[in-house]
């Protein structure tokens, strides 16, 4: 970590002289690929960064604020609601969400609403807007509205709530820590069953509610080795894979009958 920070500081210092423009952001991830092996139980991604500025950069009245979004690959979801029909409970209504981020975290250096106003949040697709465009906030205590209980909002709220409980959606206003005035770091836990694929990390630098700089990076979550080979076999050679599974079952069953033979 220290090495990386030092490297970032060097990068920030050695930046070529620029005209008096806004700050630039340099960020780095602790890994470019989360590799899943048999002992994988989830992981934590660290994000390091520095705010590049030189002598000609204007001084800001308000302190720097960081907002980092981590967005996982999209997954199709269905949310179902149970209702009582007679004496039994059954799924009565459902809503499909075609493309919802399978993982979504908003890490910031303070409460999101203090850094940027809701309009800006919507503009930059930060917060719940990135998941479902029609929801107002990402907080638990949603404003009491007079609008009718439309199925859309009910299902969207259920989706956000459940996915947060399961650790797939995260809003952490204390995750980004400024080590010094111009360097920051953040950590985001990735649950073990987070979807596989490409994750997009976007770092936003704000000051006084204005976006100064933005930088994108990303990482992959993927299976390697035996886990990757097994999944590929199941997908590409399903018949052979099935025979192998059945064969394994028969072999162990036969072995057991030999080992435990009592007559």
């Amino acid at each position, binding site marked *: 970590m220290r090495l990386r920070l030092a490297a970032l500081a060097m990068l920030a210092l050695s930046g070529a002289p620029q005209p008096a423009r806004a700050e630039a952001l340099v960020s780095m991830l602790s890994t470019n690929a989360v590799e899943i092996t048999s002992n994988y139980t989830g992981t934590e991604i660290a994000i390091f960064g520095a705010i590049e500025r030189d002598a000609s950069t204007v001084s800001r009245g308000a302190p720097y604020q960081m907002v980092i979004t981590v967005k996982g690959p999209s997954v199709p979801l269905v949310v179902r609601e149970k209702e009582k029909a007679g004496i039994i409970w059954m799924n009565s209504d459902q809503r499909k969400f075609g493309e919802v981020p399978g993982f979504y975290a908003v890490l910031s250096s303070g409460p999101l609403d203090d850094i940027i106003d809701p309009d800006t949040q919507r503009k930059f697709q930060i917060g719940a807007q990135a998941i479902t465009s029609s929801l107002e906030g990402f907080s638990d205590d949603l404003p009491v509205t007079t609008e009718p209980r439309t199925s859309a909002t009910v299902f969207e709220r259920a989706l956000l709530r459940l996915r947060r409980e399961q650790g797939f959606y995260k809003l952490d206003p204390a995750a980004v820590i400024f080590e010094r005035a111009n360097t920051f770091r953040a950590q985001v836990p990735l649950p073990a069953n987070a979807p596989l694929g490409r994750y997009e990390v976007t770092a936003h630098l704000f000051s006084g509610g204005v976006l100064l700089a933005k930088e994108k990076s990303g990482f992959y979550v993927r299976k390697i080795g035996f886990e990757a080979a097994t999944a590929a076999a199941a997908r590409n050679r399903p*018949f052979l894979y099935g025979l192998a599974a059945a064969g394994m*079952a028969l072999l162990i069953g036969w072995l057991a009958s030999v080992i435990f033979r009592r007559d």
Partner: protein
Amino acid sequence: MQIYLPIAELPVDMFLVLGMGVAVGFISGMFGIGGGFLMTPLLIFVGIPSAVAVATQAAQIAASSTASAFSYWRKKALDGKLALILICSGIIGTIIGVWTFNALRRAGQLELSINISYVTLMGLIGSFMLFESLRAMSRTRRGRVALKRKPGNHGWYQKLPWRMRFPRSRIYVSVIPIAVLGIFIGFTGSILGIGGGFIIIPALIYLFRVPTSVVVGTSTLQLLFTMVVTTVLHAVTNGSVDIVLALILIVGGVLGGQFGARAGQNLKGEQFRLLLALLVLSVGLRFAVELVATPEERFSIRVLESRQ
């Protein structure tokens, strides 16, 4: 110790799953049933996606039934001819079942119909067995000998055409009701993700008067073939057989199965039926509670399988 499952795509506690395998293996070895109706809910409870749970425990049942089928084979405690007819008709039932399964899934009420079928099936079979075994036990306690098989006492269904002699089971019955039973087992098995041992055993005992000593071995042989076919079918149609999960369950299952088989041999016929009845009834009750009780969480999220 956590181990990552490559198909289920999540880590599980290896010893927990192993323990589940041993426990279900014990019960299945004891009663000669597959135990799918116990294993599937357990796997789903620890977070395994239901498709993976149903598909993978088929492999586990195949393994534990292989182990017991061999020992019944050596003891000649199975009827190969009877099993063959059940297997062949079972395949027909499986095809009809898979078709129905897909139709129900399209209608969006698969989960509900599975739960209701469990409750109905297990409630009926469990109550009947409980009632019957209690009656048999009270009869023995009153000093009377348990009712022996009366050779001439046949139900109408046994006298249908194509009667066939099954020397090992000491029965002479029409093939038609046996084939119907096989089709029914295959059908319910593919819909509910179970082997159907808890249906086939009482059916053979009460409907066809097959001796209890032959019933368990025959049911085991039938299970073995059905589950091998089911494993391959699941792998081909939905790719949800998790070979790592299967291996853990198999090892646990065959270990438990050996001890279960030993325990089962010390049981008297009525005790055997009473215990099996109570087991079937309690699982049925659990599904009934799930249907009727107010859920803690009314909403549920399911990740739709992305089909390549």
